[in-house]
């Protein structure tokens, strides 16, 4: 069970109040893309054992989308951040680096 802090409304809620929205920071491939690039965009997803950047929605709460970085191995949450960014903020990357240096994640 994850405990998630919604960055939009501030609730510290349990996982069942939220809905996972899959891998974050996908680059959209549209008209003009190669078939391979479009196929990859549609179907191919990372499946790491370790750090994963994800989209989540506070589905039963405020209804807003946001991003979350967590470890798929330990379920440690490294941070949550706004939905409208293309990459994780430095503060979240720093926390992941700290977890790496302490051996909590690969």
């Amino acid at each position, binding site marked *: 069970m994850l405990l998630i802090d919604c960055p*939009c*409304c*501030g*609730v510290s*809620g*349990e996982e*069942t*109040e939220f809905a996972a929205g899959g891998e974050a920071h996908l680059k959209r491939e549209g008209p003009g893309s190669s078939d391979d690039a479009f196929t990859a965009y549609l179907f191919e997803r990372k499946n790491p054992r370790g750090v994963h950047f994800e989209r989540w929605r506070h*589905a*039963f*709460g*405020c*209804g*807003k989308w946001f991003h979350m970085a967590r470890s798929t191995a330990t379920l440690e949450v490294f941070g949550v951040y706004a939905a409208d960014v293309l990459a994780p903020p430095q503060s979240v990357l720093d926390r992941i680096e700290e977890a790496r240096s302490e051996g909590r994640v690969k």
Partner: protein
Amino acid sequence: MDMTLARPLMEGTADSGAGGLKLSVQPLRGMVTLRADLSDATVAKAVKDAVGSDMPGVRKATDTALWMSPDELLLLCPYGEQADVVGKLTDALADTHHLAVDVSDARTLFRLEGDTAREVLAKGAPVDLARGQFTVGDLRRTRISHVAAAFWQSGEGPDVFEIICFRSYARYLWDWLEESSREGSMPGVL
């Protein structure tokens, strides 16, 4: 058939033996969704003029304004006055980005009152309902059992909770609340 007046989907009251718990379906109430920048003073004034409420804080409820999300309120008024409330908001916010919609028939309102009301809610909602943690004016939009709902603690008594859910879930939530209110089923931890 008069299409402007809805009937409550259901009616009912139930008294449980558990700590004098009382569960009831509330009469229809006017409900207006307002989406706007809640930090905008123009919006706060429009809300005050429309339903007489100050802007509720995050996850707070007043008698007539419920915080629903960072850019959304649910405003309450007597049933039949909702068109008037929408009209006032629309006029006051003519030059402000907003959305005001009558959603009075979208939701059903319940009231659960009694010493153990918070224990009943805590069985189904992932919310800290301990006395002192959840008090008068606090609101949570969350789930109860499997359905989306919101509840807030009313100031009309020591342990009065108002609960809303979508109309189509009302029967399910009623049954769940009634069953969860049965005597002998309280964990006795709150």
